[in-house]
């Protein structure tokens, strides 16, 4: 039992640090460090650099062109990337579409889609939620009519992250009406440039645009874009939901956020003139969340050790989702509190690193406050924390 790294792991970590240090573009790192918003090109630029190295699809086994890393290596990679201010790798291709395609897709589908994901030349999005089916996926209504060699798809997807950036969407549609709502669902890949696809932005409370409504009106989807068997899509969706939940803990990003919070606390002046870090009352709140983060990280590592030993993580992923989001939200809240009155201004130019005006208040204030507002969504998306508690109650506690 050992928290510190083995010599091999240490070497691996060093290799990651060297690569990131040498290849991460400075302007992108600065934006991440300052918590500014990244645009499509920022993400793609870095992801293509990773793709060249074979690290964009970093969770994939070698047989599908991934690096074949162990679970500990993946973890180290993510934490080090976050620590060094890399953008988050957008999960829709490498963490979601990719594993479904290489697990359930045909050889033709693999040849067609996997390279674009590995190299990050294609941006994917996820067409799951619908207006009447949020956390309740089984009740979805988007209908795909079987037209022989193709489907005609009509319906509406909502909360689709970055649909306005996306080239392709993987999508759940209903292909049969059955008694059990989970059956009769199919898993389709849809070209976002198909006629009949319309993307409409959903503006978020903090002023950003990352979510969308996607309207589908008689969109022609060739049958070769069906994954696995028709009517069996729920199986693939569930497979994917588990993947997504394990990912959601995002320990590395949260640790980086904690470090930034401490930097803010060390630079802001408290009410009595010393730094906020020295202020016992503010510091007390820092310590509380730091102790929670310490628990969370070790819990994640314990689960990693189990998985590495061949055990299934089970609903533990729900535990990481619940506490991971709560802790990340709390850190963002404290950063917002740290800046006092300067949590009030809304300065979109600075948030997007656009415009020439200097922000009012300290530089970090504009992003800290916006970040707090933004992060309220963390406990809602990816299966709300209420849904996750239900999963633990049912599957783990058998209540």
């Amino acid at each position, binding site marked *: 039992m050992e928290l510190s790294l083995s010599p091999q792991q240490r070497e691996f970590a060093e290799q990651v640090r060297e690569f990131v240090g040498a290849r991460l573009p400075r302007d992108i790192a600065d934006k991440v460090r300052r918590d500014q918003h990244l645009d499509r090109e920022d993400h793609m630029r870095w992801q293509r650099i990773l793709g060249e190295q074979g690290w964009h699809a970093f969770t994939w086994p070698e047989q599908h062109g991934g690096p074949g890393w162990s679970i500990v290596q993946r973890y180290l990679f993510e934490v080090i990337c976050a620590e060094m201010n890399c953008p988050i790798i957008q999960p829709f291709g490498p963490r979601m579409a990719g594993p479904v395609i290489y697990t359930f897709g045909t050889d033709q589908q693999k040849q067609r889609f996997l390279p674009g994901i590995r190299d990050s030349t294609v941006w994917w999005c996820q067409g799951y939620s619908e207006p009447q089916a949020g956390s309740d996926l089984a009740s979805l209504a988007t209908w795909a009519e079987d037209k022989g060699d193709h489907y005609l798809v009509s319906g509406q997807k909502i909360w689709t992250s970055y649909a306005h950036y996306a080239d392709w969407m993987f999508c759940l549609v209903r292909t049969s009406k059955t008694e059990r709502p989970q059956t009769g669902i199919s898993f389709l890949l849809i070209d976002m440039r198909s006629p009949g696809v319309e993307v409409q932005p959903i503006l*978020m409370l903090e002023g950003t645009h990352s979510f969308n409504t996607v309207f589908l009106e008689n969109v022609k989807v060739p049958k070769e874009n069906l994954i696995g068997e028709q009517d069996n899509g729920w199986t693939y969706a569930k497979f994917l939901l588990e993947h997504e939940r394990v990912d959601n803990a995002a320990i590395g990003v949260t640790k980086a956020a904690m470090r930034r919070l401490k930097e803010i606390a060390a630079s802001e*002046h408290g*009410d009595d003139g010393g730094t906020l870090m020295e202020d016992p009352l503010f510091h007390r709140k820092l310590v509380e969340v730091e102790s929670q983060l310490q628990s969370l990280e070790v819990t994640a590592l314990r689960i990693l050790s189990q998985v590495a030993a061949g055990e299934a993580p089970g609903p533990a992923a729900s535990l990481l989702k619940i506490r991971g989001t709560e802790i990340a939200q709390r850190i963002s809240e404290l950063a917002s509190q740290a800046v006092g009155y300067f949590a009030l201004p809304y300065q979109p130019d600075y948030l997007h690193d656009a415009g020439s005006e200097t922000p*009012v208040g300290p530089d970090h204030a504009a992003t800290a406050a916006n970040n707090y507002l933004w992060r309220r969504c963390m406990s809602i998306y990816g299966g709300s924390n209420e849904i996750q508690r239900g999963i633990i109650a049912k599957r783990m506690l058998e209540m």
Partner: protein
Amino acid sequence: MDLSFSEEQNMLQESVSRLVRDHYSFQRRQQRLEDGEDLWLRFAELGWLAVPFGEDQGGIGGGAVDVGIVMEGIGRALAVEPYLPHMLASQLLARLAPEPLRDRYLSPALSGDCRLALAFIEAGGRYCPWFCATAASESSDGYQINGAKDLVPGGQSADAYLVIARSHGDTRDRQGLSLFLVEREHPGLQVRRLRTNDAAGAVQLTFENLQLDAGARLGDADQVWPELEHTLDLGAVYQAWEAVGAMAALSEVTLDYLKTRKQFGRPLGANQALQHRMVDLFIAVEEARSSALCAALAMDTDDADERRRNVSLSKIAVDRCARLVGQEAVQLHGAMGVTDELSVGHYFKRLTAIIASFGDSEWHARRIHRLDTASLSSSSQPARSQSWN
């Protein structure tokens, strides 16, 4: 000991409710924001700008509770009209301005013709209320002002600013603060408009060798801290009532959502876990209402420590409730709660701004700490907290 409203207060509340109901549906509020319009003159017509002033000054002789009744409506309406900053400034004006200044500005302030705002916030001072680097150096015929007030909430539509500047001492001294009236168009004043998360808006003021004559000073030179402290307490109290209005509306909206939105074939509100959380929201609104009331009544006392204690306890209680209600309302709305589309996100942002204003809970806890430890050394008995005694 009677905590029911007087007949006059009931009437004021009725007039507030009517305006909110008739003119502040969320859609109309959003439309008005987009059009850049406001209902300031309507506020004036209804007498709201005159509430806390003596009848000799053209007011109606109300107290903090009466202004609070208006503020509650403003909170419920999510109104961005800068009623609070204007009231703080005009009350300071009425108390401290030399006669010529008062004669010139007070009556327009009450009639809606002149809007005022209080400029007291600077970057680097966090919530330290006597932090002030903006300098007022005495010159032959008055003062020269240099520096900046980095955030003046509600200052975008103000015609004149009451500005705290340092006429003496170091940046963090409690002594040496003076108060000046500066018109928006005064040479040497630069006004930069700022957007805010809560859509209320603000400005940043920069003073560059701005010349004022001695008549522009309100109150005694160097000695304005006690009045400023009283005014900031008033701000915390007014804002507490606004928070109560916002929380009450937000919890109604949330309850309504839980009853109508269906998931897994039944209303969300059929989930007992959500019911119990909704109950905690409801309780929090009632608690905040009680705290806001208590603080407003404490503004009447002559015992400054009693006032400080009650206002600070109230700020802590209201912040706690506002945080709970804001965060939980968003969460209970699910994905809809984090959009710009429903009112819930806008209430949440306003509550967040309120929590961040007039000192956070820690600042107020520290103030009570000073009171408690001072009373320790002055007597062996800790202070009794019986407000009605």
